[in-house]
């Protein structure tokens, strides 16, 4: 690789870094609470390098509560005496059942009901049979009523429609007979 190859790559990297820096100035980052707590503890214990120390010092300057936390942690407060209050705190905390199983999605399989069910079977075929019975009864009833009505009036079919029947033959009359002259 020649020097000429390296220069453009360095320039490209510089340009990429410039874009990244400018982009970083346009967005806000959600605070990483766990990371912040660890940073504060590391700061209190003096375990940060110079840059990190300066970064946390700048954050503490803007956050007096956090600065007080760090100062308290440095003085390593203790409450060694046994007291009723401490025993109550221990008893309550020991009563906590730690949530060791993270909530996860659980697939519940629905087992099909394999027991034979006769209710739908009878409902299905029963409804068909009932429909046939009703239709048969209705048709029979309507036919009987019509027949009775005609009988009770004392009229026969040839009396009802005399113009349609030929009295001599008993067959239907030729209605086009008069038109052929």
């Amino acid at each position, binding site marked *: 690789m020649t020097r000429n190859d390296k220069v453009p790559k360095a320039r490209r990297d510089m340009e990429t*870094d410039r874009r990244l820096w400018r982009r970083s100035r346009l967005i806000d*980052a959600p*605070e990483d609470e766990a990371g912040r707590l660890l940073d504060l*503890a590391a700061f209190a214990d003096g375990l940060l390098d110079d840059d990190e*120390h300066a970064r946390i010092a700048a*954050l503490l300057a803007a956050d007096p509560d956090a600065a007080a936390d760090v100062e308290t942690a440095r003085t390593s*407060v203790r409450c060694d005496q046994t007291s009723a209050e*401490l025993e109550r705190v221990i008893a309550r905390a020991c009563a906590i*059942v730690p*949530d060791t199983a993270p909530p996860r999605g659980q697939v519940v399989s629905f087992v099909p009901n394999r027991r034979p069910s006769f209710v739908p079977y009878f409902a299905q075929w029963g409804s068909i049979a009932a429909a046939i019975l009703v239709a048969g009864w209705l048709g029979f009833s309507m036919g009987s009523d019509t027949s009775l009505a005609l009988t009770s009036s004392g009229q026969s079919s040839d009396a009802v429609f005399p113009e349609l029947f030929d009295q001599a033959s008993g067959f239907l009359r030729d209605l086009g007979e008069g038109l052929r002259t």
Partner: protein
Amino acid sequence: MQDGGLEELLRGEKGAWDAFVRRYAGLVVAAVRGVAREAVDVEDLAQEVFLRLCKDNFRLLRSFDPARAGLSTWITIVARSTARDAMRRHRPISVPIDAVPEGRLAIDPVEPVRKLKLPEALLSPRQREILTMLYDREMEVFEVATALGIDPQTVRSAHHKAMIKLRAYFKSEVE
């Protein structure tokens, strides 16, 4: 249990949890006492701290890194921070509720997350200054070194560390 007992604790062994509580209850009580407004709050606040430590399968406790800080120091920081947050949440309303406009009584559906300016959250003041000079003022490395009275190699090193942090942040954002 400086660090060794943490493994058993994180595996969910009840005995390890009880031992952890007995060992650090005094520290937690002392830490929250410095934040509590009244003595009667101390027990409840200490309970909040222990609940937070074991919540979601010890999610917060798993973030502890013994290479970066001592466990006692970290627990003190966690205890005070948790107690302060709990007191902010439980702060009683001191004005009649009828006097408060309805809009102000609305509760956010999601707990607000504090947002920080990204460079301020990630970079040290010196790193920010160097990046500003290099990329916003278009200065060369030797000019930055002269202006800050430091070695050019120090400028390159600070620039390199800062860019590693920014790349790591944006990479995690993309992922």
